[in-house]
């Protein structure tokens, strides 16, 4: 159930080039949140809210962590928020990654993330590892200065870093590494559309889930701004409500 809530900024820090991490306090939101869901954040002076994924949750502390990249005027304004200020959000929104319902045979999980698509995979990976899965993470960044959360992923996953320019980790694209990783039972991916297309076509035979992005109006399923064609039908799914996570074969990229 989505609510309109105020979340108090408990900490705020620049964790990589143009990338801000915020820890937000609100017990109701953190209790309800599951991996892959997002917050729809109001930005003063802007007509539309900004969707930002949940990157981590501490249910005991009642906090939710988000990570975002300064990408335009809205995220720039958001980046200017400081500790103790409040964000007006709708959330937790959308349908996240299947975790509890994941079949028990899925022993090894592969996470494939690109850039600012990586945050939702963090909360997901941590949750799956706590459920006893083996987790492998292949994370792609533009360059060394953009790398974040490497250590955090290493705490629960065998982690491979790739940068476009080779300035850190392996050089190239996340898909270049997929042949080298241990066999896995299922993958979860989030990142820019070209990456998702490459990943899903390369892993067409595999059980996989992806998290999608689209420009949103309402963020709650009412305005039909964020649809994606459903595979094999003339129908559609709403990214804000039915997604943002879909099974790889469910939608047409």
């Amino acid at each position, binding site marked *: *159930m*989505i609510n*309109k809530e105020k979340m108090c900024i408990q900490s705020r820090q620049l964790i990589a080039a143009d990338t801000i991490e915020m820890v937000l306090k609100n017990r109701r939101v953190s209790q309800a949140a599951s991996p892959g869901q997002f917050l729809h954040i*109001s930005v003063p002076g*802007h*007509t*539309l*809210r900004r969707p930002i994924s949940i990157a981590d949750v501490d249910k005991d502390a009642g906090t939710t962590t988000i990570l975002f990249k300064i990408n335009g005027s*809205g995220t720039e304004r958001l980046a200017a928020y400081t500790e103790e200020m409040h964000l007006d959000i*709708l959330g937790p929104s959308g349908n996240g990654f299947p975790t509890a319902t994941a079949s028990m045979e899925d022993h090894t999980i592969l996470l494939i993330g690109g850039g600012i698509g990586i945050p939702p995979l963090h909360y997901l990976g941590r949750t799956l590892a706590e459920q006893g899965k083996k987790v492998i993470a292949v994370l792609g960044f533009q360059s060394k200065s953009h790398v974040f959360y490497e250590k955090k992923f290493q705490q629960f996953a065998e982690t491979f870093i790739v940068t476009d320019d080779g300035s850190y980790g392996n050089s190239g694209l996340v898909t270049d590494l997929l042949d080298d990783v241990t066999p896995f039972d299922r993958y979860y991916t989030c990142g820019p559309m070209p990456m998702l297309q490459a990943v899903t076509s390369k892993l067409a035979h595999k059980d996989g889930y992806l998290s999608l992005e*689209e*420009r*949103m*109006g*309402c*963020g*709650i*399923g*009412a*305005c*039909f*701004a*964020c*649809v*994606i*064609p459903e595979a094999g039908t*003339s129908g*559609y799914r709403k990214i804000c*409500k039915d997604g943002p996570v879909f099974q790889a074969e469910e939608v047409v990229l």
Partner: protein
Amino acid sequence: MDLSVQLPGLILKNPVMPASGCFGFGREYSEFYDLSRLGAVIMKAATGGERYGNHTPRVAETPSGMLNAIGLQNPGVEKIIEKEVPFLAEFDVPVIANVAGSTIEEYQKVAEAFNDTNDVHALELNISCPNVKEGGLQFGTDPAMAAEVTKTVKRVSKHPVYVKLSPNVSDIVTMAKAVEAAGADGLTMINTLTGMQMHLPSKKPLLANSTGGLSGPAIKPIAIRMIYEVRRQVAIPIIGMGGISNSEDVLEFLLAGANAVAVGTANFQNPLVCPEIIDQLPETLHTYGFDSVKAASGKGVPVS
């Protein structure tokens, strides 16, 4: 404070309703509040058959506004009557159906289909959607075509018919008079203004459809001007909209000649905006010396 308004087919407990296309069929917002608090609900557009609409991106943000090019996506009038109207009928709120089409025949078909239900209380004839390739906007910019589609729908429909005017015209009063003469029971105005945003990185229009409809506070001065002009020359009631986001805005529309108002884009910023406006309205009316919505309506328009 008397907030009630009586309009053809509609007994409104207050003058505030969500605008078509910004509220789906009410399901999502019903999780935020009881829809019975609203003056009415205007449903998303209905076309003859199911429509997928345009490619994405379908929305863009603009200064104090937004562009949309949804393209009238909807499940088609039959499914709306079967699945959506009964949901809304559970609330104590009048329902207005937004009727769209590419041809006069399609408008007629959709209007006739709504004769099958008593849970819809009025039609809003959408002759002004800028986001579909055929029909839509032409009906909204040519007075003769607007009159013809109004006449056709009036002839077949058992419900009162409100015609939704497009602001993309040289002369809004001529349009309003044409549909009034053709038998419209009321007007709703304004729909969106056709706009565009270029996406610098791709050097192309940002919306997949290229153009989209501009809505939000940015267009409020245009809406107020058009309602004021029409109110001076047309007698049928007007449901006003365009950039409303608080109770002062509502009063501004009432003064300019609106009898009731609809709220669109503001729902995206704040899903609770309609009930919040309804709660604030009595105080706002009182501050400016009114004891009812009816007393304020048209008060800013000189009698001519």
